[in-house]
């Protein structure tokens, strides 16, 4: 009888094996200088993908973005959609681009308002109103 455990356990085992294989492969490749590049066809596509992978990333910026996002989520319900979104947009855009503060401000105010109206009135998707209800 195939019970509820079977599939998950199978997947788990396969996953463990595959991960182990990946790690071993990584160690082997680090030691040898073999470049896995047989097929010219895949090259251009891979380059495009690798561009994504290797695009320079500023870790500090990333952390700030993530923390801001987390704060957004935490404040989402208590402050209501409009306020939390406005803060989020304004905060993040100011951090990333101080020069266009006017645009940031406008964006931060206009976007949530329009969305709120659109969703609440037109689409009947009710967003949290926080302390304003």
């Amino acid at each position, binding site marked *: 009888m195939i019970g509820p455990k079977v599939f998950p356990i199978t997947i788990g085992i396969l996953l463990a094996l595959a991960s182990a294989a990946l790690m071993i492969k990584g160690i082997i490749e680090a030691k040898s200088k073999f470049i896995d590049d047989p097929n010219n066809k895949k090259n251009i596509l891979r380059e*495009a993908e690798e561009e994504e992978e290797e695009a320079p990333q*500023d870790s500090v910026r990333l952390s700030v*973005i993530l923390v801001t996002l987390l704060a957004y989520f935490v404040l989402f319900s208590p402050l209501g959609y409009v306020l939390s979104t406005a803060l989020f947009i304004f905060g993040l855009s100011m951090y990333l*681009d101080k020069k266009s503060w006017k645009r940031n401000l406008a*964006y931060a105010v206009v976007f949530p308002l329009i969305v709120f109206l659109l969703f609440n009135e037109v689409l009947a998707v009710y*967003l949290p109103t926080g302390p304003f209800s």
Partner: protein
Amino acid sequence: MFIGTLTGVLPGIGPITAIALLIPLSFGLDPMSGLIMLIGIYYGSMYGGSTTAILVRTPGELASVVTTLDGYEMAKQGRAGPALATAAIGSFVAGTFSTLALMLLAPLLALVAYHVGSPEYFLLIVLALSMVSNLTTGSILKGIIATLFGLAIAMVGLDMQSGVPRYTFGIPNISDGIDFILVAIALFALPEAFINLAKPKDAKTEQVQKIKGSLWMTRDDWRRSAGAYGRGSVMGFIIGVLPGIGPSLASFVSYVTEKRFSKNPERFGKGAIEGVAGPETANNAAVGGALVPLFTLGIPGSATTALLLFIFMMYGLQPGPMMFQTNPDLLWAIIASMYVGNVMLLLLNLPLVGVFASLLKIPPVPLYIGVVAFSVLGVYGINYNVFDLSLLFIFGIIGYLMQRYGFPLAPTVMALVLAPLLEQNFRRAMSISNGDLLMFVKRPVSLGILIFIVLVVILPQILTLRKYLKNRQSPKSSEVEKDISNN
């Protein structure tokens, strides 16, 4: 359709992200309109991607990479108009062709598929998943891990046949499983936003080429493009049907083919119009092709079609052979609308190219912040609870890590959608055979599929092994080989 092109133009937002983000919006619409809208988005963003590729040398999505080669050159020569025109027309031809092909093929395939039983279905899904994990990106291992990850996510929730909660850790919010849309948005949309927002301040930008001169193609252009349209459509469609490979490979194969067929191949890379016509046609044709297995067998061939599958399921439709019996009107309506959409694509896009080009000027910061905000909206709209947001956050980070470390995302999403079917069919198959695993081998059709699976999985490994051994023995000759193949 319009929205599709809009999103396609925006760099970094490909068809998958667009569809994922807009799914929640389609909730309010009836099935037909919702589906049409989303398929339109799929087509549209394919085309939009070519616009950026031609004007800014930045592909809108992976499939447009090839278009950057000759398209941008043409733009620099002041021939952006014809490049865009040929892309649009090629896409139109492809769309028409593949819609027709779909119309003809689908009923036939559906008849065949009708005889597919549980074990075969199970193996077919395994086949699709293994093809996707093998063919999607460089490292097959990573592909497999990505697939397994998707399956693992799907395991969370109540087991369908016994009602036993699995991996819910006592959190009631996930006892229904983790929402597919949530994962899709978190894995695709958020990492794009993160990666682009986290770029250090002085990232370089390519110059946007203005569209000078007329949009019209010369007779010579037409002549050259015509053949490309034809070849591209057929090739693209066939490639699209196969799971795991789709528009990107189609465009690449088309480019290479055009170059080989051409009487003066040295023009490629410097603005040969066939280099734009062929690939663009092929990638749109592949979109149509990918819909074939989706409609007839209910098996998606790529992440994007996986999303579409999910939408179908949400509306209570089960694509597959049944669909032609129970809901033929809906199906034909969708196909008909695809054709109409195609025509609209052609009519709308040519004149509006200028408008789209100006969209490119939206600076990344507000753009991606908007993407994030939209993601939040979309996710919240599913279940109206904030817990989902924390899931969004976690998966967003996971998605980011996956993208940065070269793990393909497509298999994960596909696995997530297909997991219930996979498990269901396996258990059904087992109960039919009373636990006899050999059943897969005893039935002729499933044996055939099984062999195919083994081939698909093993062959690439053997090839790689061969090259590895060759390279070890003669490093000099492989250098020479590389030089030749690069020219």
